[in-house]
């Protein structure tokens, strides 16, 4: 008998012969051409003196000279690396604490949380550039709304602008990041809390645990994979931070907020020192790759557990 088959043709033939993985090819091709290729090219460039600014530096092989320079002769790189670490640890820990607390608040005390949650998410969905501008406006030294009220309350010296002060600028920028990304932490934790089974909590209550014991002995251990995930995702993202800080301060004043991404941008696209810039960019990549490998484990850890 001959039944007509549905969805024949080349596609069907290929899939039916068990070569489905072929459908990965376009995706892989794209990544190889646009990502791996250029990346390898960049690694190549990192061994040259390529520069668009200096005459005669048109890509001569210099061996590990750029790497040596990074390690030995570039305190600015290491300073920006340090600034970045302060930024990352600062924002991630504050966002983690606030976000978790807020998630617990929503979970236990708010019934109609969908609408509230959507409003909370607005900061993180806005273009980071817009976030930067928004806060630049709020924090403007002369007519910034927040500046004005802080001065009214006596919390800020009339001569000082938060974004112009060498000591205050980094904490300020970090607070803007906290404002932007705390909702993300809340969102993920809330989803995590909602996905937890009810029974262990009831069992603990029946076993006689008080609320704080339930939190310590049940909630936190069950959320541990999510905690790891949030820390790593936020850590990686904070490490890559560019847009918002670039708009807010451009890395300044001086180099007070020059995060590693901004420094790499300056070397490449202001100084046009591409050989050396390639090394900087490569270093950023390396750190993220390490964090990424760890987070991948964390994600798999999550999937293999009760939390799905």
């Amino acid at each position: 008998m001959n039944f007509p088959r549905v969805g024949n043709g080349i596609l069907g033939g290929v899939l039916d012969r068990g070569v489905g993985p072929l459908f990965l090819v376009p995706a892989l091709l794209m990544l190889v051409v646009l990502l791996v290729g250029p990346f390898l090219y960049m690694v190549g460039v990192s061994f040259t003196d390529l520069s668009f600014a200096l005459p005669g530096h048109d890509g001569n092989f210099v061996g590990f000279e750029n790497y040596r320079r990074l390690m030995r002769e570039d305190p600015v790189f290491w300073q920006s690396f340090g600034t970045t670490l302060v930024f990352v640890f600062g924002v991630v820990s504050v966002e983690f604490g606030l976000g978790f607390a807020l998630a617990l608040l929503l979970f236990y005390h708010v019934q109609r949380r969908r609408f509230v949650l959507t409003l909370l998410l607005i900061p993180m969905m806005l273009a980071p550039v817009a976030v930067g501008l928004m806060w630049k406006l709020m924090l403007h030294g002369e007519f910034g709304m927040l500046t004005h009220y802080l001065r009214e309350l006596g919390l800020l010296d009339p001569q000082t602008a938060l974004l112009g002060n060498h000591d205050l600028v980094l904490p300020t920028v970090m607070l803007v990041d906290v404002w932007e990304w705390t909702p993300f932490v809340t969102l993920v934790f809330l989803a995590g809390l909602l996905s937890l089974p009810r029974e262990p909590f009831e069992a603990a209550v029946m076993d006689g645990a008080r609320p704080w014991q339930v939190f310590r002995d049940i909630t936190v251990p069950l959320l541990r994979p999510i905690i790891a995930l949030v820390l790593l995702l936020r850590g990686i993202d904070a490490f890559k931070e560019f847009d918002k800080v670039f708009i807010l301060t451009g890395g300044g004043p001086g180099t007070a907020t020059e995060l590693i991404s901004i420094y790499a941008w300056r070397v490449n696209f202001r100084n046009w020192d591409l050989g050396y810039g390639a090394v900087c960019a490569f270093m950023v990549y390396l750190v993220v790759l390490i964090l990424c490998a760890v987070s991948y484990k964390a994600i798999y850890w999550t999937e293999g557990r009760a939390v799905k």
Partner: protein
Amino acid sequence: MRKPWRMAALATLVAVLVISLTPYLWLFMTSFKTRLDALADAPVWLFTPTFEHYPMVFLDKGYLPMVGNSLIVAGVTTALSLAIGVPAAYVFARHDFAGKEDLFFFFLTTRMAPPISVVVPMFLFFGYVGLIDTRTSVILAHSTFNLSLVVWMMRGFFADIPREIDEAAQMDGHTRAGMFLRVLLPLAAPGMAATAVLCFILSWNEFLYALILVAFESRTLTVGIPGLVTPHGTLWGQVAAVAMVATLPIVVFTFLVQRHLVRGLTFGAVKG
């Protein structure tokens, strides 16, 4: 729950919402303020709105084409990432082959890659092939980082469809391709819509790639806004107007995809 606790919770929540939303509200108000109101020493909350900034910046200053660029870049990026990413996600969800998980990890790393490290080689590469300052270059750049998002999210959505559906479809006489196109894709459609919206948002909001890869005609909105900020006096009304246009559609989209946001932003590790 006892009353005082409820009140405290409610008060905290209101405070958090006020802090979250005030800056955006302020931006919105500024976009309708006259220069005088915007630069007043004491913040002005009540004012007679002016509508001059929007036509001024979009028509007279030529920001309208940037909106077009942003739309084209985000739209084409979304279509391209889905076209390439969805079949790949299906393969990851339903086929087993050696090295699958490692390949998957590779996809993850491309998403995590810091833009600054990727944009440098891309800049050199697009310069080499003569695509600098074209929308194509931005589209390709955005598609590479969105691709893994699509693969990660869609793999999850496909995996949510029980395998029995596949088997039933095959027993009903579908080929695997027929099954994919006529059974699985429709079932995954809501997830795909959410993925598409998220792709669009990320491309629309993206700044660094666009900043480096395009300079003039192909500038997107995000790259265009900082151009209004100058050391000698920024026209904040106009900046706010552009920023509003650049963000309001996204806020609307956020309401649409909220349910799937968690999965998209955690690489499928947490379901919303």
